[in-house]
């Protein structure tokens, strides 16, 4: 067998085996009641829930894209590390225990009851569905990329298979099926992420633990990994790896927007509804963060190692020497295979048959490059391939590559399934049952839940196959919008007894409108072109559209507090609800 077909068979075998496990779990855990369908009958063990939450939380973006982003952004990429883990701290301290004590099914249900308002609940449903769909489209896209690269299927075929598997265990198994498949998926994805990281750490530094290898000396002992990386990338005209290039104030606001936005993500919040009691919600939050931290502290090490490996492969000799660069005809197998996907592209601008990879946007370095006879950067690398190509770049055995493919799919499917369930619960419970058909029977609601999950899967698959042009932009902004709209009413619903529905609704609207207006003004949307050039001189206080959700959130809080102070106090039963979720009840003894 050739190298390529061996890899293909191994990948089919590993991915197929993981699918068989997920479907087996779905059949074993199929559900019969809405309580089991929405929140797994509140019977999930905290450690299992921690793993499921971690798999839910870590999407295709965390698994496939994040290390790649950091590899090219260096220090600036820290916003994703601190943002996504720090947001989890906010969620665990400010939201999760109280929502669990509230003890119902969904986030819109909490907002609806806390503000005694169907309108507030409807606004929350709309925010939730918008955020969830933009997310799912990205997950489905991730599944498509993995299938097309590793199994050489069309992206469309890959999507159909992925949708079929999610359909089976989400529609049959509901939250219970999703929970236990997510536990299995966490195991697959963390194994798939850390094994190549350990191998590569060993190859480059001789140390097996990526978090330590990250700060260690290179094998030849000449310098530390980071010092060498800093030197090499700056010699090629890029920004220093450990210092980055964006302004600190912008990084500050982007980090805050990611933190607050992720804290309000409904598919993660709902995971805390599934455990037996409030103290279990707190301990499962600890477990989840530990499981998340294993990947999140490995990712920046993978990023630095991958950037180092990539640069050394392309530029094995001294910079500027006529024979310093890789000869295109002698390119390694992975280079050829990723070229086939279009995610890696080479154009021999100076016709020397060698690959030059440098920052031709840096005017100063460009002059020097021209002296070397270089005529522009010749390689474009899609950031998404860093994690997926990493084992190949490091020449790891084929089974490791197959494992990474299964891990990428596990990460995408687990998040997609969690989001689908949140959408179906919002539709069947918050819209159909609570807004339109309060007399709906238990069986009717369960059927409605299954049907809306099925419709949501089809829609998500369509969005993954035909991503509208703006999806990529919107995904980055979903966090800002969630921060500006959903986070404040939930927090104030718990921590302020005085907050009423007028305050909450006007705050949500102000936050949402301000944030979306700012984003549209600088980035445009659909057919609307931006009103201002998207440069830091034009930005309000130098804050980019990615970070503006924080200002939107502050406006939301300010509006809500002032409006509520001159409107009536919330009714007695709401005050009782707030008191009930604040302190443990007798059942928690």
């Amino acid at each position, binding site marked *: 067998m050739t190298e390529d077909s061996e890899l293909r068979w191994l990948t089919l075998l590993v991915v197929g085996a993981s699918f068989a496990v997920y479907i087996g779990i779905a059949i074993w855990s199929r559900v019969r009641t809405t309580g089991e369908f929405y929140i797994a009958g509140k019977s999930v063990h905290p450690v299992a829930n921690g793993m499921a939450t971690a798999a839910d939380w870590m999407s295709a973006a965390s698994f496939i894209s994040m290390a790649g982003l950091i590899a090219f952004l260096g220090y600036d990429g820290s916003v994703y590390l601190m943002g996504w883990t720090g947001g989890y701290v906010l969620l665990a301290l400010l939201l999760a225990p109280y929502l669990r004590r509230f003890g119902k099914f969904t986030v819109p249900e909490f907002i609806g009851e806390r503000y005694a308002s169907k309108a507030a609940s409807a606004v929350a449903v709309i925010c939730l569905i918008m955020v969830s769909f933009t997310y799912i489209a990205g997950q489905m896209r991730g599944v498509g990329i993995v299938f097309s690269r590793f199994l050489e299927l069309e992206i469309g075929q890959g999507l159909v298979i992925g949708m079929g598997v999610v359909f089976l265990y989400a529609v049959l198994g509901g939250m219970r099926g999703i929970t236990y498949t997510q536990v299995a998926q966490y195991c697959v994805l963390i194994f798939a992420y850390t094994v190549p990281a350990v191998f590569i750490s060993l190859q480059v530094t001789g140390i097996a633990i990526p978090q330590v290898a*990250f700060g*260690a000396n290179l094998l030849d002992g000449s310098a530390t990994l980071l010092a060498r990386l800093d030197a090499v990338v700056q010699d090629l005209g890029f920004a220093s790896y450990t*210092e980055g290039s964006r302004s600190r104030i912008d990084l500050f606001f982007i980090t805050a927007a990611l933190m607050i936005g992720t804290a309000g993500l409904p598919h993660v919040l709902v995971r805390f509804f599934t455990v037996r009691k*409030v*103290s279990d919600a707190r301990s499962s939050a*600890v477990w989840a963060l530990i499981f998340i931290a294993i990947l999140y502290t490995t990712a920046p090490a993978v990023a630095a190692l991958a950037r180092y490996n990539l640069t050394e492969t392309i530029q094995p000799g001294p910079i500027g020497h006529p024979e310093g660069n890789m000869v295109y005809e002698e390119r390694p197998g992975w280079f050829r295979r990723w070229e086939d996907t279009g995610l890696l592209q080479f154009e021999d601008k100076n016709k020397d048959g060698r690959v030059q990879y440098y920052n031709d946007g840096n005017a100063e370095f460009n002059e020097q490059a021209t002296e070397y006879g270089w005529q522009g950067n010749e390689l474009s690398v899609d950031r998404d391939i860093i994690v997926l190509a990493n084992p190949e770049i490091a020449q790891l055995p084929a089974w490791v590559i197959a494992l990474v493919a299964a891990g990428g799919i596990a990460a995408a499917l687990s998040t997609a399934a969690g989001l689908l369930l949140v959408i179906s619960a919002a539709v069947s419970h918050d819209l159909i049952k609570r807004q339109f058909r309060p007399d709906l029977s238990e069986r009717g609601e369960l059927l409605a839940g299954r049907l809306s999950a099925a419709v949501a899967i089809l829609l998500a698959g369509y969005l993954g196959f035909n991503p509208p042009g703006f999806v990529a932009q919107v995904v980055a902004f979903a966090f800002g919008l969630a921060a500006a709209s959903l986070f404040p009413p939930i927090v104030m619903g718990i921590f302020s007894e005085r907050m009423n529905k007028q305050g909450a609704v006007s705050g949500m609207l102000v936050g949402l409108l301000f944030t979306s207006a700012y984003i549209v003004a600088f980035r445009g949307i659909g057919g609307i072109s931006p009103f201002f050039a998207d440069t830091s001189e034009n930005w309000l206080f130098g804050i980019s559209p990615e970070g503006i959700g924080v200002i939107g959130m502050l406006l939301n809080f300010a509006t809500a507090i002032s409006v509520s102070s001159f409107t009536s106090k919330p009714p007695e039963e709401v005050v009782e609800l707030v008191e009930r979720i*604040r*302190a443990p009840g007798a059942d928690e003894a």
Partner: protein
Amino acid sequence: MSAGDYWMANLRLIAGCLSVWFAVSFGCGLLLVDRLNQFALGGFKLGFWFAQQGSIYVFVLVLIYYAWRMKRLDAEYLSRRVGE
């Protein structure tokens, strides 16, 4: 312990946890990063280490501490109420 006392103790604990959360990420990882980068931690610049590793480790410790303290606080509150 009254429900009010329990709530105040809860708020103090959250405030403490959030100050640590802010100090390691926004403080050491972002605002003070250039100053901390003058120091080294093994092969890392210290500020860079906080931004890409240290803050995450501290986040885990913060949540462990929070869960442990809340468990004690709950037990204290519930035992006093049973005694009433």
